[in-house]
């Protein structure tokens, strides 16, 4: 089973993206805490697309595709903006990060903390971030 939502690249649509994914995650069987974590990860991914891939151009599209099978809840978020290589963005040492009061760059760290798996793929056409969360009893060893 899979569902898709397409939003325009504007921050005013972030809530719509969160609500779309939250509804599906709830139906899939996640508790409210998990639903909140998953929709926050989606918000962070879409915010990164708006800021970095599209650099605030407001007339572009973000495709949010959700599929569900065998206890895995998978979200793919794709854009046609500027690609980036997440390998160049290490997870920050949070204590050091915070002690220097740096702003921004926390979104990806949050996505990695909230989801079981986060992968990026870019080709000539588009960038895709794929995030997976497993129902607790279905998580692969």
């Amino acid at each position, binding site marked *: 089973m899979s569902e898709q939502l397409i939003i325009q690249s504007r*921050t*005013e649509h*972030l*809530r719509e993206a*969160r609500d779309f994914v939250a509804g599906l995650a709830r139906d899939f069987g996640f508790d409210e*805490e998990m639903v*909140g974590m998953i929709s*926050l990860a989606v*918000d*962070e991914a879409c*915010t990164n697309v*708006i*800021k970095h891939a599209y650099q605030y151009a407001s007339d572009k599209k973000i495709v949010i595709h959700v599929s569900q099978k065998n206890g895995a809840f998978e979200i793919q978020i794709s854009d046609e903006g500027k690609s980036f290589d997440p390998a160049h963005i290490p997870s920050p040492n*949070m*204590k050091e990060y*915070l*002690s220097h*009061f*740096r*702003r*921004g760059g*926390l*979104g990806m*760290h*949050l996505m990695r*903390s*909230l989801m079981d798996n986060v992968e990026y793929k870019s080709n000539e056409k588009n960038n895709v971030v794929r995030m997976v969360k497993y129902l607790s009893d279905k998580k692969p060893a």
Partner: protein
Amino acid sequence: MSDFKLNVRNINDIHVVDIKGYLDAHTAPDLESAFSKLLDDKKFKIVVNCKNLNYISSAGLGVFMMFIEEVRKNSGDIKLSNLTPKVYNVFDLLGFPLLYDITQEETDAVKKFGA
């Protein structure tokens, strides 16, 4: 309908910012403007009451990080109170409790300013 609202009130020389709703990349500029105005007016003792804050993303957390340094340089602080467990979890995931003074109740935060 706005997803985010804020209100600033005074308790002596302490400014309490009540925030309500959803703090994300769309609404974070509203909080940024409110902090900018307080700092422009040399108001450095700030409590943010998060009792009615339903949601925060890293864009919202970034606003706190933007101002904390300048506020502390001026012998002030941004203290946070009344966080719901859901919002506290996001702060906690990023290690904010190490750096920010977070209290259960607004009155505790106000007292810590020596009021």
